[in-house]
């Protein structure tokens, strides 16, 4: 288990909840995220070529 030490650098950072960590490898949720990343990257590429 990670040990959070008071007044150390890791005492002041947000950490994800168990649900957030679970979603990161939830295949269904990640398929949606996969589509979103691809759309975001496509838009970026279209904006970047001159």
């Amino acid at each position, binding site marked *: 288990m990670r040990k959070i030490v008071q007044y150390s*650098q890791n005492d002041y*950072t947000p950490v994800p909840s168990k649900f957030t960590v679970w979603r990161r490898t939830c295949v269904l949720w990640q398929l949606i995220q996969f589509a979103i*990343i691809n759309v*975001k990257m496509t838009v970026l590429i279209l904006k*970047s070529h001159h």
Partner: protein
Amino acid sequence: MARLVILGAGVAGHTAASFARKWLGKEHEVVVATPNSQWNWIPSNIWVGVGGMSKEDVVFSLAPVYEKVGIDYRQALALSIHPEGNKSHQKPFVTVKYTSPSKAGQTEEIEYDYLINATGPKLNFDATPGLGDGSGHVGEHTVSVCTADHALHANLELRALIEEMKKGKEAKILIGTGHGMCTCQGAAFEYIFNVEHALNEAGVRDKATITYITNEYELGDFGMGGLHIKAGGYVTSGKVFAESLYTERDVKWITRAHVNKVEKGKVHYEKLDGSKHEEEFDFAMLIPPFAGAGMKAYDKDDNDMTKKLFNPAGFMFVDADYESGIRGFENWKPSDWPKTCQNPTYKNIFAAGIAFAPPHLISKPMQSPNGTPINPTPPRTGMPSAMMGKAVANSIVDMMLGRSDTPTHTASMTEMGAACVASAGKGIFNGTAVAITMYPIIPDYDKYEYGRDLNGTFGMIGLSGHWVKHLLHHAFIWKAKLKPGWTLIPE
């Protein structure tokens, strides 16, 4: 008939050569000179460095690919540029030294009509005593993932350490930047989380203390002055997300550090406040600073004019505002950055990718009370390199075919975005990666409140990021091999 010579066959050079060959008729020559016999998809070296991929997965031979499309390939290192020719050559030329086994050591002078300098960086390990071996290569105390061979070696060292840890050894692992002027923090970021993932998979994570050391002012700077994204109802600095990930994975961090000496099992470093420290390690991967390839330049009388073509670090001058560097951070503007990548003196010379000289940093310049600069230098690898390579090829083709006397295409980092997928562990169902898009690369605080368009700047971490990185690995190797449909895969 005209001849385009391209020095280097990395992301920028290979992209430029491929498109130039496609767009130019057979009556024009495209010559590529590069000391390497293989093309390397560098972003996947991270996975070679933890045993997730083999060297063969990330490299392929250039010669058959260039033969297939009619590119004249010379396996040779560029030594010098002669933009005015000399007594023996009416036309400008470059001098190269062959590195292929059959012609090793032979030199040749290749005339050109147009030249693209895309040599990429020299990995300047020797800038930090002990980080290099004194002859330009990585030293014996640390490992690197900058090349496929380096990454192979890194994995061997890592596996040996894991075996010791399985027998009960407690290990200190140090990963980060090996000098105060490094760029490419992303590679160190990826490697530290892939090592952490590998230790978990080997069941020895609890035996390791992992520390990240960086020249960044704060985590998440990445040499781009950091970024902000919208998340959870807030506009939040990337520093918060980066620190969150380091805390979640129990990785300590040391920021604002210039590693000034490496010994067996120990680094010495200076902090931005001038204090001096040491950090011990059992395994360390430290990224070296980058320098230019070290080419010389000569005028028509064979007098050295290297300073006219290259800055002191060896990067080539292009159409940037180099006076802007001395005007100070507060006065920097996006317009300081190059657009066409054309050399201002010799209009038939262009530089793309890492080879061009940036006008100044992107992150704020800082130095310790001892006068030691500790700040990341500007990243210009990957997507920006490829876009520059394509734009430069497009301009040169138009000039060679008589359509224009001036460059017709631009690839300014102030008007282009970057997509970055940083692996945080490999696995088809348990891998994760941080996917980031940002627009533009060079922040514009006159146009955007946070320097970048918050609608085009985005970041998330998850399995989908890993899938994207894996997909990009196969897509870009397919594209680089110039297989059917390669032009449909965007840069």
